[in-house]
């Protein structure tokens, strides 16, 4: 090796060392800045509490409740609520509020040991119904709009079938109705042994186990090596962008433990091979769910690249609620609600609610 070759090699090594150090400095900057810590971005007041549930009412810039048609957001009870109120300027709920609606969000909170006994009836005909009653009482409107996200959409659909007289319009976002469509979280959980969850003797399914199902959706990218590589590449991004990534990570990676009875019931009713929503045989407690009662305007949105709720399983709503408006948007399960392209969805929802 000639001296000039050696010098070139040392130059390349020095450049590599400098790049690595710059990334670590950026990482240090991000890790020492304040994180998201799971709060919604928009000022809100707690207007109802029950067990771990908090019903939030978004406030305007003067700290006052907004005036307008009421909208209740129902997120999935197995994840944090703040994905729909993520950041100032990037908040789905904030966008709807700014369009002239009185917005409420159901935050189901973090289940603890006794909540393993929560079943569908507890959520649908208990918590969600009392949220609707509270919204109705505060807004003075006998009927309200409901927007359900993911499993929250399932709760909203079941609620609307049981109490159609209280729902003006229903929006379902990435809500699987056809459990036989292969792929997605239901299938992964099925393959990972969710069939073993007991309804009669449930456990609180640990957050790490729930997280492992989501990781199995794309095992390569979600392996430790895959994630570390991804983070290392992202450390070239500007700090503002990394703070966004951190906020999203705080939602994606901060999964909640799940009530075993709820999971057992979801699996037994809607899981692969059961599929009682499509068959019209779903029940809540001892009542049959009659989807023909869902006569209010309904919009269902699927995401093209959704690995959690496969779009075909979402769009199947058209088969059981024929008048539903079914839309498929580009993006993934989280991206369409809170990603950079999310405003497209928000605007569609505003237009639907204002129609």
């Amino acid at each position, binding site marked *: 090796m000639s001296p000039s070759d050696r010098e070139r090699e040392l130059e390349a090594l020095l450049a590599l060392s400098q790049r690595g150090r710059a990334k670590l400095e950026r990482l240090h900057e991000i890790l020492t800045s304040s994180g998201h810590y799971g709060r919604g971005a928009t000022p809100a007041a707690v207007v109802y509490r029950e067990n771990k549930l908090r019903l939030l009412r978004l406030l305007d810039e003067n700290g006052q409740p907004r005036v307008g048609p009421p909208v209740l957001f129902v997120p999935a009870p197995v994840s944090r609520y703040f994905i729909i109120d993520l950041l100032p300027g990037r908040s789905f709920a904030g966008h709807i509020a700014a369009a002239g609606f009185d917005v409420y969000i159901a935050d189901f909170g973090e289940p603890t040991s006794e909540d393993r006994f929560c079943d569908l009836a507890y959520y649908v005909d208990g918590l969600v119904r009392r949220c609707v009653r509270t919204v109705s009482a505060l807004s003075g409107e006998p009927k309200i709009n409901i927007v359900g996200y993911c499993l929250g959409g399932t709760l909203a659909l079941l609620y609307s079938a049981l109490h159609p007289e209280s729902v003006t319009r229903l929006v379902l976002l990435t809500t699987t109705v056809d459990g036989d469509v292969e792929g997605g979280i239901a299938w992964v959980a099925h393959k990972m042994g969710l069939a073993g969850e007991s309804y009669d003797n449930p456990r609180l399914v640990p957050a790490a186990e729930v997280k492992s199902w989501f990781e199995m959706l794309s095992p390569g990218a979600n392996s430790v090596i895959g994630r570390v590589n991804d983070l290392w590449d992202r450390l070239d991004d500007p700090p503002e962008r990394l703070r966004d990534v*951190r906020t999203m990570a705080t939602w994606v990676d*901060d999964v909640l433990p799940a009530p075993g009875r709820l999971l057992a019931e979801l699996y037994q009713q809607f899981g692969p091979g059961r599929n009682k929503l499509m068959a019209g045989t779903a029940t809540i407690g001892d009542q049959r769910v009659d989807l023909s009662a869902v006569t209010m305007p309904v919009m269902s949105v699927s995401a093209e690249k959704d690995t959690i709720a496969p779009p075909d399983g979402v769009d199947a709503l058209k088969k059981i609620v024929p008048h539903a408006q079914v839309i498929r948007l580009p993006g993934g399960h989280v991206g369409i609600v809170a990603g950079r392209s999310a405003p497209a969805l928000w605007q569609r929802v505003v237009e639907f609610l204002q129609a």
Partner: protein
Amino acid sequence: MAEARDDNEPALVERWLQDQQHWQKTLLAYLDSMVKNEDFLVHVGNAMRGSLLAGKPYPTAPPPGTPVTETAADARLDQLLFALHQIQGQLNDLSMTVAEMRNGRASSPAPQASQSRRADRAKRSVAPAAAVKNRKRKGRG
């Protein structure tokens, strides 16, 4: 052909030395944050798993073979607590209905299952825990 070198640019060896000094500063900054901020170690641990999750450790499963410590009494206590949550919900329903009547509005939407059936169900789920309590009392007496 070799690139023309700026006369003001430090020699390669000097730049290596500068880089080493920067590395020392970077590592000292990490050490300083570890000492000053308890959360920082958690955040570094998360980053080593490829996650920027803030405020808590990345969820990991306990090592295989970790014993489950729950006893039958814990399960019954949880059942009792859950039954209390259900009763709390029914009481909230009741107070909402009273408020609606006071305001002259029709009560809506009422629970689909009848109140008595719900109360029965709540009683049933409380019953085993209550029975255990009674048995214990008898045993002591």
